[in-house]
């Protein structure tokens, strides 16, 4: 079971001052690539046990924000504070070691490996060992391998993908690839799960399944989840809070219903000019 101790889940309506330290604090992040300003002064708090949705029109900078949190991009200004400590300048694998797992907008599975091996890569962080022991295999390396295999099998059961264990990942249909990517992220037993459009390109049934899985993950393991999503009904259904980005700025934040009715948000989606 994941290590995230179950802090009080922030429920809507709780008095702000009584909330514990947020798990992730994004403070004034600005990122530009040459002349393109991808993010301007974006701030966001994500509390333990929350499900936060990040929405916004295409090109708003949502994936860029996740990339900054992952440590893949380093912001020119601003800080990322994870679990109380400044993590802005960490390398991606260091961020992963802290307990942040991720899925990607364009499915980033390892096409040359089977589903099982892909999910096992999610466990790589937890695998200690020396390559010489691995070279011998029989002994400590084998025991560790089997222990992690057992953990991965639990994730496979959870996401109901037993049948495709040995299929090369490249041969799966899109919906299943997305599910395997989620499995890989879950295998790491993360504190914070970042999902980049986990339901993109799926039909209604697949979306329902995915929603159910995301909610199950949240309910059973208490994982904090931040997801980027375009489908409004999904966002309304599962998120506790919503943050809206447009042209690299945060233009709204709050409970799903409040955000949906927000004038600035509606304008952004309709493409009306605003400052």
């Amino acid at each position: 079971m994941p290590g995230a101790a179950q802090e009080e889940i922030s429920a809507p309506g709780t008095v702000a001052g009584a909330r514990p330290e947020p798990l992730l604090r994004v403070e004034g992040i600005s990122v530009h690539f040459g002349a393109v300003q991808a993010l301007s002064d974006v701030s966001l708090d994500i509390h333990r046990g929350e499900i936060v949705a990040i929405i916004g029109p295409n090109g708003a900078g949502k994936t860029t924000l996740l990339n900054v949190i992952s440590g893949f991009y380093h912001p020119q200004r601003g800080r990322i504070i994870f679990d109380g400590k400044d993590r802005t300048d960490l390398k991606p694998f260091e961020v992963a070691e802290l307990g942040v797992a991720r899925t990607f907008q364009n499915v980033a599975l390892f096409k040359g490996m089977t589903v099982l091996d892909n999910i096992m890569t999610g466990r790589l962080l937890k695998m200690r060992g020396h390559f010489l022991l691995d070279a011998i295999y029989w002994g400590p390396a084998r025991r560790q391998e089997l222990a992690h295999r057992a953990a991965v099998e639990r994730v496979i059961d959870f996401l109901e993908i037993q049948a495709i264990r040995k299929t090369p990942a490249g041969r799966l249909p899109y919906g299943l690839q997305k599910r395997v990517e989620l499995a890989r992220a879950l295998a790491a037993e993360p504190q914070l799960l970042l999902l980049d459009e986990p339901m993109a390109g799926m039909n209604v049934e697949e979306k329902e399944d995915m929603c159910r899985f995301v909610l199950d993950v949240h309910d059973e393991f208490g994982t904090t989840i931040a997801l980027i999503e375009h489908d409004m009904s999904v966002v309304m259904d599962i998120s506790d809070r919503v943050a809206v980005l447009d042209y690299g700025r945060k233009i709204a934040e709050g409970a799903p219903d409040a955000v949906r009715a927000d004038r600035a948000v509606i304008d952004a989606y309709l493409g009306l000019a605003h400052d």
Partner: protein
Amino acid sequence: MPCAPTAPSSTPISGSPMIELLRGVLVAPFADMAGNLTFLTEVLFGGVAAGLMYSLVALGFVLIFKASGVFNFAQGVMVLFSALTLVGLMEKGVPVPLALGLTFLTMVALAFAIERIVLRPLVNQPQIILFMATIGLNFFLEGFGEMAWGANVKKLDIGIPDTSFIVRGVQVNRLELTAALTAAVLVGILAVFFQRTKIGRALRAVADDHEAALSIGIPLKTIWVVVWSVAGLVALVAGIMWGAKSGVQFSLSLIALKSLPVLILGGFTSVPGAIAGGLIIGVGEKLGEVYWGPLVGGAIENWFAYVLALAFLLVRPQGLFGERIIERV
């Protein structure tokens, strides 16, 4: 080729070997250079000439990479092959202009064959697969060229003597001068071709994204044949220049390997980059060999270019002129 100085000309001063080493590397070579400016100019000119020849071959790479995204390892052997064909025809008594024309036609035919047999079946494969296919092509053409025209070293006479004349005390080699000028002209034409013409733009589109280019109606097959033919022409010119200088022989295909550091410095998609890279490598190599070589027993040319490129890559992974790749995920 003017003879190299025998040993670093500094008089040994009593001191630790470390100081001697540092003097030998950091001080003496420059002192040597300053001491004989005429010689330095000759070395520099030799470096520029060699560099331009590297650039010529690198150009062929850049063309193909720019237009089809393929790193054509066989470019070097195309240089050899074209030179072999030319010499072979000339040996059979074919007059030079006709031989040139026939060789060019052969290279075009080769381009057709390569497009049909190698490129088309592999159109969607990752770059590394295409690269390895061109390695296979390299070996095939090597064997084929030797089989067709024989393996001996051949003399290539294009009517320009390998003699030197003196300009203000500096020796200048006629052949090298011709090669340099030809390279410069060819490069100029190609640069204009890419930047200004419609076909040039289409080529750049294809290099960016094959499928997108196809979807807007750019005739991929035609483009590839055009590009590989032009690359073949460049290879032919390079082959003539190299062949006239050192004879047409198997080691010509090793030049391809030498062009790789040039490409690294100049970036894989930049025509001016190929020139700049070639010059830097050519001059750097010559200077290194002449002034630093004696320190370590010579023959630095074997690896100097690669180490130079490696050092460069560590600082600037995209080369001098390459675009900084912003990775997305």
